[in-house]
């Protein structure tokens, strides 16, 4: 079957951006993000992940190359940027820089108020966004009394309240403990199921392997590699070469297949629980005695 060619929803085409101090942000970087996809952007510190995020939201303008959005080059006029930012939301890495008001619900209302919506609509959106991140109870709390994880969730709610089509999250798990990470992963999972296009910049290959359906790896501002999750088990040497950690599930799966304990599958397991289930299934089927063998052994 021939699939129709559709232009990517968001794309960078040979984008270059150098900061004023001469440090490279992006260098001739090209990548594409499909509509309704979950894209993980991985890379070491200084690889250009944050610069990429800022380009996707129109906060930085490429010095060379083009950023494409919804089939057209990004429009950097005042109206164009307003439209872009209403459709592409960005959650910053450090919540302290994103939270502008000392009140939770006021801060969440900031984006929808900028969209010029009626106050009654803004109120509904704020309530819905706070419910989506599980912070309804904290609506009237001061921001400075929240934990770091809660502040991150307020930032996410502030973007969700704008009801964007794309959410870009820059290092959403940085500084979070394990329960908070799981909580945030649950929220992201629910948002993904609602059909939002999501882009997450992360250092965590385990999360990216389980969550994303497309990997883009940046190195020194360039796109070093792109993988679909099913390609990861065979791409482990390349990942190691790029200095990224290896997804433990993919590594283990590869070893188990190589040692004959698991049979290779078209869709390899992506999460710990999936791998365990397959192992148990394989172990169970190996323990099942062949027909008639049980009777013979009892003789």
């Amino acid at each position: 079957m021939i699939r129709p060619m559709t232009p990517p929803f968001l794309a960078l085409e040979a984008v270059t951006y150098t900061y004023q101090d001469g440090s490279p942000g992006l260098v001739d970087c090209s990548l594409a993000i499909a509509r309704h996809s979950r894209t993980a952007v991985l890379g070491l510190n200084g690889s250009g992940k944050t610069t990429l995020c800022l380009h996707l939201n129109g906060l930085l303008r490429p010095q060379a190359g083009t950023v494409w959005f919804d089939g057209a080059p990004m429009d950097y006029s005042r109206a164009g940027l307003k439209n872009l930012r209403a459709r592409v939301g960005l959650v910053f890495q450090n919540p302290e820089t994103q939270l502008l008001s000392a009140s939770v619900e006021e801060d969440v209302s900031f984006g929808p108020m900028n969209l010029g919506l009626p106050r009654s609509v803004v109120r509904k959106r704020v309530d819905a966004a706070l419910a989506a991140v599980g912070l309804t109870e904290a609506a009237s709390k001061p921001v400075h009394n929240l934990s770091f994880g809660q502040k991150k969730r307020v930032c996410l709610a502030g973007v969700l309240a704008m009801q964007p089509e794309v959410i870009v999250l820059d290092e959403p798990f940085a500084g979070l403990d394990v329960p908070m990470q799981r909580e945030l992963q649950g929220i992201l999972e629910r948002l993904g199921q609602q059909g939002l296009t999501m882009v997450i910049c992360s250092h965590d290959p385990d999360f990216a392997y389980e969550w994303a359906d497309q990997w883009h790896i940046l190195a020194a501002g360039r796109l070093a590699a792109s993988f679909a999750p099913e390609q990861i088990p065979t791409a482990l040497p390349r990942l190691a070469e790029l200095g990224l950690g290896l997804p433990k599930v993919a590594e283990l799966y590869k070893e188990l297949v190589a040692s004959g304990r698991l049979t290779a599958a078209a869709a390899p397991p992506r999460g710990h629980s999936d791998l365990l289930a397959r192992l148990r299934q394989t172990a169970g089927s190996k323990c099942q005695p062949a027909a008639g063998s049980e009777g013979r052994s009892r003789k």
Partner: protein
Amino acid sequence: MFWEQWAYRSRWRLIHPGAKGLVALAAFGSAFIASRPGYLLILALVLAAATIRGGGLPWRVYLRALLPPLAFLLVGTATLAVTVQAGAGFWPLAVGLEPSQFPQAVLIGSRSLACLTALLFLSGTTPLNDLLVLLRRLKVPQVLLEIMTLGYRTIFIFSACAQDMTMAQKSRLGYATLGAARRSLGNMVAVLATQIGARAAAMTLAAAARGSDGPLMFLDQEFPPGRRSFLVALAAALVMVSAAAVAS
């Protein structure tokens, strides 16, 4: 900062800030109208009791907030009753009490105390964020409100930052000697000063990311229906102003 934290926990926090503002304003007015120190002291006591009992603040917390400005107030009032004259003989200056100034000093002192307790009543039951809601309704210029909003937010950011830096400096003996403490404090101030610019730039970027292209607009916090609290506040205001008129 500790006072602000208690304001968030006040029992009267959810009463409309307009009602509390009306009481505080009436208390100020009453303090300026009245000229009998006895009435002013009673007014101060009532306002303090309302803040502690009504607002649910521990009295120790209240005293902690009251005592520093009270000390300034006492010193300031005492100087009103002191005269300094050119001395005769060995001493070039003669310092003495001026009994004729006592009534004036007591009146100004008690009036200031009443105003101070009125301010503590409002600030102890209404966090600044809620006051901003009131100021927006009162059509205070947008620029001032934005400065207040960002200033209020950044106070907490920089306070946390300064605390972390002080702790990090202490862990490396940064305050072990007087000289080291002076250097550490200087370094911290210098680093914080440079961070202000970076933070301001980051906040501008974050605001732009959420579609801001000018004024900072927020949805005002909603308070429970306030008809009853406004009526109570109005009655209290009338009582205070009438009593002050009698005591003038």
